[in-house]
């Protein structure tokens, strides 16, 4: 057994002295995850980050002449922008004057400024119509954030327009029925407008939905950053390549004569092959552990509870090692092994969704990818990233271990047939 450890240690050393191997195992996945994470703005989320919005509300009660402060058009617009439904999308910062708000946009302190004019409520209430323009002042360098805010503002203004029309219609109707008291008519119009707004709000519900992985307890989901979601896919994909480097070493050693020479020593062949297997596992284990730690330190990945993370790292290394050994076991030359391995790994990664992160897996795809151990691992890591626990990863772990056993058995069959 000690000799198997010596063989494994020798192979691990050889692998980690290989610059190309190091680049494949570490630089590739980290670089890709960083690059894709960086491409999504701050890299915080696939969901668009909250747009910092300056709001200047000049539509005051005295000017609106309404009894209810909350029913001024400016207040309603402000309330809409600060509503809980939009809290993840719009972050409001109040400013006193339009000039200050515009300067904040110019200095890139906020992405957009919404400047509500003094006569907005009056303009909405007046007949014939007065004109009051809500200004959306935006930084031309940003597009998504101002577009979102503009859409929200437009939606609220349309809602107000509808309320105004409803109020006018109800007042007109009351007047036609003989009601001439201006105070009562105003009260009817106000109540109608309030009812309209509430009904619209219930009907349209200005909420935005974000999708996450299929998991229980969705209400308590975390929101992992983009880089960590990409890193999971890249890590698992590159783990296969990490495993295939020492696995291909078996064929390299056969060709260079060191494996036959090993077979002339008193070390039994089973121990020699066992040492080789162990080396492949250790190489992948070290690789995945380093990537998980690097993801946490460099990319801010919050992997979740330590226990399930360690379990996934270990079973991931096991299945990557067994997969790498299997693809090498029936190849005749290292070159052939490299070509076959790459094709199989890319196909597996495509099926498993390694190239598009842990989120956004539709229900059908989530089922299809279970034909591959990588798919199960993607599912398990995805659950952990979204706040999952042991219960969420137990089934994937069992499934992956099943794949591992089958792959190891097949690899051993082929290797024994060749070297026994």
């Amino acid at each position: 057994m000690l000799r198997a450890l010596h063989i494994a240690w020798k192979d691990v050393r050889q692998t980690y002295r290989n610059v190309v191997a190091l680049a494949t195992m570490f630089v590739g996945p980290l670089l890709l995850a960083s690059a894709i994470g960086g491409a999504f703005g701050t890299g915080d989320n696939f969901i668009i980050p909250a747009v910092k919005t300056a709001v200047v509300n000049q539509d005051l009660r005295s000017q609106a002449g309404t009894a209810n402060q909350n029913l001024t058009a400016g207040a309603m617009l402000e309330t809409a922008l600060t509503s809980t439904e939009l809290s993840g999308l719009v972050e409001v910062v109040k400013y006193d004057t339009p000039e200050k708000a515009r300067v904040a946009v110019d200095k890139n302190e906020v992405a957009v400024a919404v400047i509500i004019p003094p006569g907005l409520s009056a303009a909405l209430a007046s007949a014939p119509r007065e004109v009051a323009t809500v200004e959306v002042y935006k930084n031309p360098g940003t597009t998504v954030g101002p577009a979102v805010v503009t859409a929200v503002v437009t939606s609220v203004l349309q809602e107000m327009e509808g309320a105004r029309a409803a109020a006018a219609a109800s007042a007109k109707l009351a007047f036609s029925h003989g009601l001439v008291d201006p105070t009562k008519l105003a009260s009817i119009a106000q109540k109608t407008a309030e009812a309209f707004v509430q009904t619209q709000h219930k009907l349209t519900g200005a909420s935005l939905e974000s999708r996450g992985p299929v998991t229980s307890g969705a209400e308590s989901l975390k929101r992992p950053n983009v880089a960590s979601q990409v890193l999971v896919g890249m890590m698992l994909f590159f783990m296969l390549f990490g495993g295939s480097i020492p696995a291909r070493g078996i064929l390299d050693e056969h060709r260079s004569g060191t494996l036959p020479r090993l077979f002339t020593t008193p070390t039994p062949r089973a121990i020699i092959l066992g040492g080789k297997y162990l080396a492949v596992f250790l190489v992948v284990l070290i690789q995945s552990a380093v990537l998980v730690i690097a993801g946490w330190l460099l990319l801010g990945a919050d992997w979740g509870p330590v226990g399930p993370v360690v379990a996934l790292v270990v079973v991931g290394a096991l299945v990557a090692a067994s997969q790498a050994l299997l693809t090498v076991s029936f190849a005749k030359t290292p070159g052939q092994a490299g070509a076959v391995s790459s094709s199989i790994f890319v196909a597996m990664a495509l099926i498993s969704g390694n190239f598009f992160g842990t989120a956004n897996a539709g229900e059908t795809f989530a089922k299809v990818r279970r034909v591959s151990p990588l798919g199960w691992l993607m599912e398990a890591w995805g659950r952990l990233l979204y706040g999952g626990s042991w219960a969420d990863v137990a089934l994937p772990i069992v499934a992956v271990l099943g794949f591992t056993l089958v792959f190891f058995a097949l690899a051993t069959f082929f290797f024994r047939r060749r070297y026994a």
Partner: protein
Amino acid sequence: MSASRENAAEAIVVQNLRKQFDPPKGPVAVDNVSFSIKTGEIFSLLGPNGAGKTTTISILSCLLKPDQGEAWVGGYSVTREAEKVKALIGVVPQEIALYEDLTGRENLFFWGRMYGLRGKELESQVEEALELIGLTDRQRDRLSKYSGGMKRRLNIAAALLHRPRILYLDEPTVGIDPQSRRAILDRVKELNAAGVTVLYTTHYMEEAEELSHRIAIMDQGKMIAIGTKEELVQLVGGRTRIELTLDRHADLLAQRWRTLPGVESASAPEDGRLFLLADEASTLLPRLFETAREAGARITEINLAEPNLEMVFLHLTGRALRD
């Protein structure tokens, strides 16, 4: 014979070994080969590439299983007691079977461990081996920075760490400089003087002649002669070896000379140089000059010598060792 053969006088016994690759149509690499090697002997397998030397060593190293026949090493069967055989032998393969990205020292430690050495014994053996092969100063360099000769020496040292009783060397001097070759041959003699039985394969006649107590000549999987150098040379009888160098038409003249009376065989020319095995040199020489002149060629150099192993091979196979 199924049981172990305990015989202190015989280190290796080989009986009717046969090995065919990719049967039934593949080449027969070893064809009914039998020989024995005495304890303390240097025994050489001499033959051209493809003669079956490496396959024979591979069977005796328990790397390959024979199709037929049996072999015993140190009294243990290579087919049934492989682990015991492996503990007795050290194998120096033809290629440099070492790890390029490990240092010389790391390589020796690794191979020592594979032979079961541990702790201080391993360390002292590695230090001693490095000293012996003159690589103490370079021990922490990776193998990729070593010269071919240094690698060859390390290749041998790796097989000696566990002090084997029997050492196999498969063409250990291929592709190295004369100085390193000399060092290796001297080392083999020293090891033998220390009691190590040596099985040595080569296609260099001079090495076999210099080193060996006995030599077996192999060709196309068959053992065609076995004995001491003197015994083998006697197979040629009282014939003379005539070495010639021609300025042109060497191939043509070799063909003609093969048909001359008194010429037993002629080697294929190489750079205008060839040799003949002749019954009576004194009557043949004038004819050689005459036929060369007729062909428009000139003999630029001629030597007469006692027969050697190359002549034996030519005599037995009709081909030179290099052919």
